[in-house]
């Protein structure tokens, strides 16, 4: 299991290599990138803020839960960026390896979906005319 939170650009190739495993016939990944618009407003940049110690702890828990749900999981890699990101930058990568493909899709989706619900990381969007903390208000 490789879990990381970094203020440096994420190396996708290196992350995928960490997920490779001789016993795996499938490596599945999700790459989250910064989009140029949000709810119709043009996004200029994003700031990601993390509660580092808890974020790492919760990411490990999510990976462990995936391991329990899919015991055939070989490798789990989750790397999340923090700090200032621009359009097209990679914000997160999840990569998993499994013997067969079906479980790789399911485990990868479970990890990114759960990450978005529980891991204490916050995204502030900067527009040409203002800012918003994403999801903060109903």
């Amino acid at each position: 299991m490789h879990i990381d939170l970094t203020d440096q650009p994420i190396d996708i190739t290196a992350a995928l290599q960490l997920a490779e495993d001789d016993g795996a016939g499938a490596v599945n990944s999700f790459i989250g990138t910064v989009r140029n618009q949000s709810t119709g407003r043009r996004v200029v940049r994003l700031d990601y803020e993390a509660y580092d110690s808890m974020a790492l702890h919760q990411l490990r828990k999510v990976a462990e839960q995936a391991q329990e749900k899919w015991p055939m999981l070989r490798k789990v890699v989750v790397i999340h960026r923090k700090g200032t990101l621009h359009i097209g930058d990679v914000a997160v990568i999840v990569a998993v390896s499994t013997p067969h493909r079906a479980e790789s899709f399911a485990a990868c989706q479970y990890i990114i979906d759960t990450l978005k619900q529980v891991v204490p990381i916050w995204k502030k969007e900067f527009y040409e005319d203002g800012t918003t903390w994403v999801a903060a208000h109903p």
Partner: protein
Amino acid sequence: MKLTISLFGIAREIVGQPALELTAPEGQSVQELLTELRQQYPALGQLSSLAVAVNNDYATDATALHERDEIALIPPVSGG
């Protein structure tokens, strides 16, 4: 007891500082802490949700707080 509460994201901006120091009765519950903070900072009550983390895990309303706990306010998360 003295409590230090770490603040992140919009909670940090609402309070205007990265941490709060409070004096509270020993064993104060998470629910009591939240009620007090929402009274002091009404904008916290406008958020979609506001959780409390104790020692890097989500706490429940009934969780009792202790002086050496690492406590943080967790406004709605938006990672990924």
